[in-house]
């Protein structure tokens, strides 16, 4: 969204080539009616100016994150792990399944089963990306409905 809001550079005033045709390189007054804050205009024309301003870089849009913790109604065995893997494949976000200090990708059914998450324990779904909220909602639902 706000990707192009770094318009800080002093872009407007300096069209050097067109403004300074008369005097080749006169130090005095390079015809600067609209260039108030440009002291060394003559020596360092266009190219240099571009590099000057960079203090307030707007970071790329921060990725959305979401998470949910589910208390398992059943063991996280093959069938729900398979459902989890299929559900996860529908999203673009990076999703992780966490249990007892371990974190795996939900698309890896073997790794999910390897968590050994049993009924009554908690599993956390964490996602980062454009559809993070939807991914977490979908996977948490799969976990909630495990049987």
């Amino acid at each position, binding site marked *: 969204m706000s990707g192009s809001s770094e318009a800080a550079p002093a872009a407007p005033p300096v069209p050097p080539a067109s403004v300074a045709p008369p005097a080749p390189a006169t130090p005095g007054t390079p015809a600067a009616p609209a260039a108030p804050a440009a002291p060394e205009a003559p020596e360092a024309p266009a190219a240099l100016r571009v590099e000057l301003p960079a203090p307030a870089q707007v970071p790329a849009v921060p990725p959305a994150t979401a998470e949910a913790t589910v208390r398992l109604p059943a063991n996280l065995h093959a069938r729900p792990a398979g459902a989890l893997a299929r559900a996860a494949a529908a999203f673009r976000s990076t999703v992780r399944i966490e249990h007892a200090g371990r974190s795996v990708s939900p698309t890896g059914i*073997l790794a999910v089963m390897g968590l050994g998450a049993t009924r009554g324990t908690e599993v956390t779904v964490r996602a980062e990306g454009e559809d993070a909220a939807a991914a977490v909602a979908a996977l948490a639902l799969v976990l909630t409905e495990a049987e």
Partner: protein
Amino acid sequence: MSQTVGIVLVSHSPGLACGLRDLLAQIGSGSVPVIAAGGTADGGIGTSYDLVLDALDRADRGAGVVLLPDLGSSVLTARAVLADHPRPGVVLVDAPFVEGAVAAAVTASVGADLQTVAVAAEEARDVRKF
């Protein structure tokens, strides 16, 4: 894209291949063509060239087939079939039989391509059971 990668399970035992196929169905790979090619033509313990060849035909729906042998002469039989009937869309994978099949089936069921399914099966080797 609409086609699903198929899986052929080659085993010395008809029961082992069919049981694994049934397990895959439970995990939700209903959309994936999984064909068991276990045992000899008369149902004994061993491997059958003809069963494997026929299974490849039945599993291939246009997106390719992952051919998963259990061990030993299953590998040799699978290789012999592929040597006589080269198919660009068949990949013989070196993977644990059960885990590789499960990983392949789940991956195929979400519409992954042949290469992705084959890699998923082979990566099963590196995933600890617990």
